[in-house]
């Protein structure tokens, strides 16, 4: 268990919880966060500062609602880090959709010259505005930045600038389109997937995506790995193990 020592409101629905803990964390990995008597769920580390680590949490369902009610001094359980992170290269681009920015934040901290694309539903949901100065923003209504999706914006930029890598995290239909776009422009892509997780260390099989365990074989996968994963962008697996179609409209 770690004690929450600071809380930052990143947007109306996203809070970052800071705590002290020594973890050797690679961008793209994740930890399992336990709230006793409630549940345990995967989250990425979005801040790595001297002794402090931060987790940015989007209020979504029962777990993250309780998480948001935690105060400084409260304790949460942390195990990990788990999984395989991003393979970082200079002269690259990150593409974050919504809370997906949390996974990319430490990538940005590590790569000095990275191009940052962030998409949000509206201006109030933009994350880390003060933290990262040169972000290329896009919103659905165009109130801030580019009007359109991150994929549209990436499409504009990728024509002009050659990236070594594109790192993406966000809704899976978005990731799928990012990968397709990058293939077209022959740019390597690494994306971080989200699957329901239980063990987090590769035994239970809950987080399967076409034979890959998102918890240990991922959550970050490369284009060439994704090419072999039929479920990518199409099928996810629920808590019961049922295969369900991913809603392509959420991007």
């Amino acid at each position, binding site marked *: *268990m770690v004690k929450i020592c600071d809380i930052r409101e990143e947007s109306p629905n996203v809070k970052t919880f800071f705590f002290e803990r020594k973890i050797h964390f690679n961008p793209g990995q994740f930890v*399992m966060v*336990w709230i*006793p*008597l*409630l*549940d*345990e*769920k995967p989250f990425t580390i979005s801040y790595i500062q001297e002794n402090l680590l931060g987790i940015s949490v989007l209020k979504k369902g029962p777990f993250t609602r309780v998480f948001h009610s935690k105060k400084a001094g409260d*304790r949460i*359980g942390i*195990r990990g880090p788990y999984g395989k992170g991003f393979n970082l290269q200079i002269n690259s681009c990150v593409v974050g959709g919504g809370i997906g920015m949390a996974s990319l934040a430490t990538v940005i901290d590590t790569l000095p010259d990275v191009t940052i694309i962030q998409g949000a539903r509206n201006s109030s949901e933009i994350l880390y505005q003060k933290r990262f100065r040169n972000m290329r923003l896009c919103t659905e209504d165009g109130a801030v930045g580019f009007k359109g999706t991150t994929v549209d914006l990436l499409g504009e930029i990728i024509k002009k600038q050659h990236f070594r890598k594109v790192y993406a995290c966000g809704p899976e239909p978005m990731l799928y389109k990012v990968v397709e776009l990058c293939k077209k422009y022959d740019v390597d892509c690494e994306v971080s997937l989200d699957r329901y*997780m*239980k*063990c987090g*260390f*590769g*035994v*239970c*099989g*809950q987080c*399967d995506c*076409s*034979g*890959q*365990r998102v918890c240990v074989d991922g959550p970050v996968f490369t284009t060439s790995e994704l090419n072999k994963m039929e*479920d990518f962008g199409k099928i996810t*697996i*629920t*808590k*019961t*193990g*049922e*295969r369900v179609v991913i809603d392509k409209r959420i991007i």
Partner: protein
Amino acid sequence: MSKVNVSVTLCNIKLNNPTISASGILGTTRALLKRVAENGAGAVTIKSISREPREGHKNPTVITFEAGMLNAVGYSNPGVDKAAREFTNLQDVGVPVIASVVGTHKDDFVRVIEGLSVTEFSAIEIPLSCPHTPGFGLLAGQGTPQATFDITSEVRKVTGLPIFIKLSPNISEICTVAKAAEDAGANAITAVNSMGPGMIINIEAQKPILSFQVGGVTGDALRPIAVRCIYDLYKAIKIPVIGVGGVSTGRHAIEMMMAGASAVGIGTGVYYRGIDVFKKVCEEMIQWMQENSIDDINKIVGAAHD
């Protein structure tokens, strides 16, 4: 290096090697079964399927400790109808696939078996021994000789496939239960399921960690208990024993086979050594056999008995 044989025949099912992925381990999808097969398993087992879909217990469901793992997954599964759709074209997997079927009532087992495309499977495993899922296994009294006999008989009526009855290491009369299964027509005994249950408390939270509070203990902690069960079963019954519990090296697998196991299930070993634990265990078995001039793995089955 001399050539050695590690293939075994279990209830007429030919396995290229004696390692089998245990039920509940990476058995959720056909794609994962195939991946496990590619990583060297001689056969694979699907995650246990019940009649209705089950969410299982809330997380945390699986945690580790110094001596192994504690889990209370609670039989999460999509239910027989959806599972039947997932587990088709199983020849794609490349090795024999064992179905695992659980139920609360006798009829449930039958319903699930009838619901699955059983022709796809090589055998049906029936765990009567889960220590942490209300309505199933030990918590439903299925571990007694009578219940075991009744359920096995019922299943026997509806399938010609080999039936493996999976038992708990907790029961002191494990041989009596195994005999009941044998009498009712079981073709093999899978020994053992997870032990306990056990509990691990997080002392900062002052609470048991697993959401179900208690869970089954697996891994290294379980191995000596499993080996003793297998040793006793080998003497007590005529049908073969599939040894499971704490195997993660070639030496462990050989130890179980010397106790009397005809094949060896691996679960927690995937955590200890990765998804290619099957390949590693086989390679280590082969190396040991070469060093010890044993040309056929079948010759060591039961070798620890006088």
